[in-house]
């Protein structure tokens, strides 16, 4: 059982190192591509080859769990990698940075340091640009694409009965 998890971890580590290398190589050419994450398919191949070498003829629960573990590690890496590229600094990060930089921030000074344009307007423009929202006669409405997301949010908030977004 331990060997399956070791194989998963090692194959993830190998792919992670190559991910870092390829990211830096692409950076030299000033290119950014999400397809770089396809490198983690190599990890799956490494796992299959390792099981073949170890003469494991059938898929056991341990190997399946180790595979889920591998996919989990790839998912977490992708979340941070995507977040790093797409989001940058979140408003929460910015507020904490401000509070670390200077003591005794009041509500007024904190609000002054944050920009409405950056917090709301840019996101709204991005939603319009990505065609989730459209503007007509100074009114914002959802496109079909936006309505799809809205329906998913409604289902989630109805199941857990919580407010969406913050």
């Amino acid at each position, binding site marked *: *059982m331990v060997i399956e*998890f070791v194989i998963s971890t090692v194959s993830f580590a190998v792919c992670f190192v190559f991910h*870092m290398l390829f990211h*830096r190589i692409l*950076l030299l050419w000033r290119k950014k591509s999400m397809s770089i994450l396809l490198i983690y398919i190599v990890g799956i191949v490494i796992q299959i080859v390792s099981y073949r070498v170890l003469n494991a003829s059938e898929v*056991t*629960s*341990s190997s399946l*769990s*180790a595979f*889920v*573990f591998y996919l*989990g590690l790839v*998912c*977490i890496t992708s*979340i*941070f*990698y995507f977040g*790093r590229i797409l989001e940058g600094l979140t*408003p*929460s*990060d910015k*507020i*904490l940075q401000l*509070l670390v930089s200077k*003591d005794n*921030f*009041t*509500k007024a000074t*904190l*609000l002054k340091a*944050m*920009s*409405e344009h950056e*917090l*709301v307007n840019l*996101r*709204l423009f*991005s*939603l319009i640009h990505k065609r*989730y929202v459209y503007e*007509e006669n*100074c*009114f*914002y*409405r*959802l496109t079909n694409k*936006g309505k799809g*997301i*809205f329906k998913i*949010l*409604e289902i*989630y908030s109805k199941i*857990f*009965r*919580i*407010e*969406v*977004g*913050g």
Partner: protein
Amino acid sequence: MDALILIINVIQCSIFFVVLYFFLRKTFVYRRTSFLLKTCLSISVLSISALLLIASWLNIALSQMVQIAIASQLVYFLLIIIYILSIFSYIESSITLKLIHIIGLAGAKGLSRNELANIYNKEYIVMRRINRFIENKIVIKQSNCYQRNKNLSLFDLRSLVIKAFIFMFPS
């Protein structure tokens, strides 16, 4: 015996979402993340205890049971972290999703810029985050002034991981 890892994971995740279904709505809005983590840890402790009981009851070797416990908990924690990072945190605090939700609630009539600014603005966004920080003891409020608490929090852990990613994947 080998199938136990997957069975434990399915049971743990099912219990986790059942607890979420019944108790998340009753939890104070700014304490939901800590509630989620506490639930996740409690379920993990309970299942490890149950596993040890089963091991002693069925006379299974302890070393084998420890291996199963570690493997199942690794996968379980990973799945919960993925849920928190990719679904829960976005639904809980994403500004973009909130904008889609507010505009969607307005329906076919739509929402003007002024109406949107009245419902959702800078003050709402900043104060919601400040209140969440205060509730989770990341920020302290003293005589109308906000100060950063020096204690290490889970939010710092997330920031550390992001810093590590910035170092490993420079832009």
